[in-house]
């Protein structure tokens, strides 16, 4: 039997993902990144538990620009994952599946998660 001539579904590499698809895979990627970020969280709380000396050296480490960048990456990933997670919960209730609203809702998600990050940066 010849298997070479079968119809194929679009390969992910050549298929232009709709915005919902991009947001969806970003949700998964931020989820994995945040999971790795949890190790950083354990380092931070352990440094507080270690007393004022270990706290001070941890703050020195976290002052390095690369760690600051990772920190703000974590915060943005957190808000993105949170906002899209809420969207998933709304989807789970069987709502907002209308095709014509998908793009505008995805853009709203991006705006809200970016605004929350900016708000944290300025006010917290």
């Amino acid at each position: 039997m010849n298997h070479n001539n079968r119809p194929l579904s679009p390969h992910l590499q050549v298929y232009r993902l709709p915005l919902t698809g991009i947001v969806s895979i970003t949700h998964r990627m931020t989820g994995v990144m945040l999971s790795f970020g949890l190790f950083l969280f354990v380092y931070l709380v352990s440094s507080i538990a270690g007393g004022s000396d270990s706290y001070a050296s941890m703050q020195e480490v976290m002052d390095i620009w690369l760690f600051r960048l990772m920190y703000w990456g974590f915060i943005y990933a957190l808000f993105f994952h949170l906002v899209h997670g809420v969207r998933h919960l709304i989807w789970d209730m069987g709502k907002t599946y209308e095709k014509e609203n998908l793009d505008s809702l995805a853009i709203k998600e991006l705006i809200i998660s970016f605004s929350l990050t900016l708000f944290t940066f300025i006010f917290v």
Partner: protein
Amino acid sequence: MDFRTPLSKVKGLGSAKSGTSHWWLQRVTAVALVPLSYWLVILLDMTLNAPYQETVAWMNEPFHSVCIIAWVLAVFYHSALGLQVVIEDYVSQEGIKIVAVWSVNLVFLLFALAALIAVFKIILVG
């Protein structure tokens, strides 16, 4: 009524019968994490910028420590559940898949304990 064929039964294929609770607990922890993230962001900000005494005092507020402990419990569980789905989606080889999922579970359990012990030490010792 049983619709499964004898062959599928003997091969052990099909539902493991724990998918619904996995899916449900992913949602339950997600809902819990939405408000709890607020205390996480405050704690992270203090940890990076506030003096030692201030951060410890903040953690010693009972309401704050409860929220942080609840966040730790929910987030490590939520994370392990999520990573399990990712592994199951991308790892096709059965043996590697099982080892990967349980390694993740074990590592996340240990780190959750480490986080909890650290929080308790901050509260009890200061």
